[in-house]
């Protein structure tokens, strides 16, 4: 307010920056720079959009394959409970649970006492793809490896053993 009172134009009072001086001296150059910046922004938006749409399409294709390669019961179970259960062939009391979203595969010990099913988490197994794939493709990869080469999968996995985990009951799926 003081400069207005003193009769000074505020625009004139602003300090001139080096960039402003350059723009004033080279209007064509500054216009070109502005256009280049605008084009760069457009290019970045296009790149982001193509990456996003490619990723979205990959996820859709992976989901279709997941639905195709699971039984309807397995797929519904996965949607409802958030994991796919794969029984062990090496140990009948063992079950693997592959999470819906990427994460560690849980190894559970199960036992039946009468009609009650008891579970206890024994370990978490971490196996990742060296080349990233959609989550749904990773579910199938875990499943097929556990079905076809359980020993190889266990050898490959990074184990986190769960000590002193409690037994718990679970409603039948």
């Amino acid at each position, binding site marked *: 307010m003081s400069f207005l009172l003193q009769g000074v134009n505020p625009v004139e009072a602003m300090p001139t920056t080096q960039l402003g001086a350059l723009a004033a001296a080279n209007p064509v150059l500054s216009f070109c720079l502005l256009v280049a910046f605008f084009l760069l922004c457009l290019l970045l938006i296009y790149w982001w959009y193509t990456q996003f749409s490619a990723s979205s399409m990959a996820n859709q294709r992976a989901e279709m394959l997941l639905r195709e*390669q699971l039984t309807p019961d397995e797929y519904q179970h996965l949607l409802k409970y958030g994991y796919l259960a794969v029984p062990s062939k090496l140990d009948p009391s063992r079950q693997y649970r592959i999470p819906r979203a990427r994460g560690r595969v849980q190894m559970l010990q199960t036992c039946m006492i009468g009609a009650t099913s008891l579970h206890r988490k024994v370990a978490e197994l971490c196996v*990742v*793809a060296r080349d990233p794939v959609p989550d749904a493709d990773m579910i199938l990869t875990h499943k097929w490896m556990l079905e076809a*080469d359980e020993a190889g999968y266990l050898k490959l996995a990074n184990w986190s053993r769960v000590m002193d985990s409690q037994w718990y009951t679970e409603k039948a799926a």
Partner: protein
Amino acid sequence: MNKLQVLGRTGHKELVWDVEKAKEENAEALEVIAEAERIVNAAFAQGQAVFRLEAPDQPAVRVNAFDRAAPYTVIVPRLAGG
């Protein structure tokens, strides 16, 4: 129809052929099978696991050689302990 499915970053890629047509020496079917065999052998060379699938309710079987008669042959990405 028989399928080769290769899981990858951009979703799976497929090759489809009819093994019955291949038995009749159909050139197109034989060409697709040759390409599928080349891809599977390249996967073996890179250490990728290859599975034979019959149906969703049947367990996967790991294979060490290409079988043109398999209903589904699937190549999964290379895995590592996380």
